[in-house]
């Protein structure tokens, strides 16, 4: 490691220590018993394509596909003991104990690309990139960003928060995005074929260049449906208070 990198790392560690001490010293009436600040770190090596489930309450979740066969989980939290994990075959389950819903845990997860994901959260950003396995994201207050995704099935459901999807739609796949309050932006290849059902209660639906190739169109004040090119994958998009925009890659 170069000198400057080492210096930067040392500065970070010093700042971490100082902030940790400050956080420990801070008293809040609702705070659970504060344990030693730390990390929850696990690595799993499933024998085949894994199904990873994370049930978090508060905190950011970032999942990145990498070229290794292991699933690596790092959570930064003041209470690592409040996180539990279980492995059943190729199913990996990590969750914040429901008896400890007040803790915040920020997760960084690396998975083999073909891992299927089920991510549950109450509040905190959710980012997923490079995954080809199925994805289900449910949260209440979360911005959700799915990037470079090539899954056959994607379901995102949030009460409040924007949703961004960038990826490819697979033949026979199902893609569903719903936000009660938030914009939904889908970044798709120009040649993507799909059956679209889009509903926006209060704002506009902008199909951009995809409007040209849409056939069998049914259009109303709050909805658009139709087939783009040959049709195929089902693309269902709903927002109650926000806009829907399809972007061509």
């Amino acid at each position, binding site marked *: *490691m*170069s000198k*400057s*990198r080492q210096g*930067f*790392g040392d500065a*970070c560690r010093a*700042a*971490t220590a100082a*902030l940790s001490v*400050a*956080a420990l010293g*801070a*008293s*809040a009436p*609702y705070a659970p018993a504060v344990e030693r*600040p730390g*990390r929850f770190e696990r690595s799993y090596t499933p024998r085949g394509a894994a199904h990873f489930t994370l049930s978090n*309450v*508060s*905190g950011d979740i970032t999942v*990145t596909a*990498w*070229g290794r066969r292991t699933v690596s989980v*790092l959570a*930064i*939290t*003041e209470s690592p003991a409040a996180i539990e994990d279980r492995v059943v075959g190729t199913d990996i389950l990590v969750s914040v104990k*429901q008896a400890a*819903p*007040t803790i*915040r845990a*920020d997760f*960084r997860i*690396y998975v083999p690309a073909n891992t299927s994901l089920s991510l549950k959260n109450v*509040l905190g*950003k959710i*980012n997923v*990139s*490079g995954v080809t396995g199925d994805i289900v994201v*449910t949260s*209440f*207050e979360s*911005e959700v*960003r799915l*990037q*470079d995704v090539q899954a056959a099935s994607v379901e995102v*459901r949030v*009460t*409040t928060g924007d949703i961004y999807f*960038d990826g490819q739609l697979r033949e026979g796949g199902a893609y569903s995005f*719903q936000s*009660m*309050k938030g914009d939904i932006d889908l970044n798709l290849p120009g040649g993507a074929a799909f059956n679209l059902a889009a509903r926006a*209660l*209060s704002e506009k639906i902008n199909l951009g260049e995809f409007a040209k190739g849409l056939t069998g169109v049914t259009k*109303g004040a*709050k909805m658009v449906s139709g087939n783009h090119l040959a049709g195929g994958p089902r693309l269902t998009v*709903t927002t109650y*208070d926000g806009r829907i925009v399809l972007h061509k890659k």
Partner: protein
Amino acid sequence: MACQEYQELISDYIDGTLELGEEARIERHLADCDGCRAVRDDLLQIVHFSRQLPLHTPSSEVWTQLQTKIAAERPTHFGSRVAAWVSRLKNLELNLSVPQLAASAAALLIIFSVALIISRQSAETPSASSLAGRSGTAGMNLLSNAEDQEIEEKIERLRESVEQRRVTWSPELQVAYDRSIRQVDQCLATCRQQLSGDPSDQVSKDLMRDAYLEKQRLLEGFTKF
């Protein structure tokens, strides 16, 4: 890019303010570089624990001192207020020509007119939040069949259960719950409002049904805490 350059971007990466391409490039690098991952983890810890720090509210003594100082500096007479205002305008060093002044006046007039129209419209139309406020379970009669009634009853039971549990939650969780339930109620109110204008509006009916299911999901989620 060298590791040092990546590390300079890690802070922005954690804040989510990077361009998409840059973000993807960092992700790829982090997946292969233990050193940069260590730096990122350190920064994550800093961000995480700084979020735990309490917000400090100034004491009433500080507020009183501030108020006293503001009062002492504030001009009391109308004349001196006008003088202070003119002085502040002078400090802005506006060098406007007559046409520029005329254009500015016209722009101000347009802004004032638009604001007036908007305020009148909002006074005439009940807002979604005011409708949501009086929604509760009222208005559910727009959904009439047995299945819908079942959803309504389930929602009511779940709501009672959540209300009993919420006292044990952190303020953060309580606020998240309140905001979410208010948002769903607001969506329901908007659907209801649109259906009352056009009872045959199938899209609003479907959206209303989905909003009830969302409310059920929300309440079920919070009954676990």
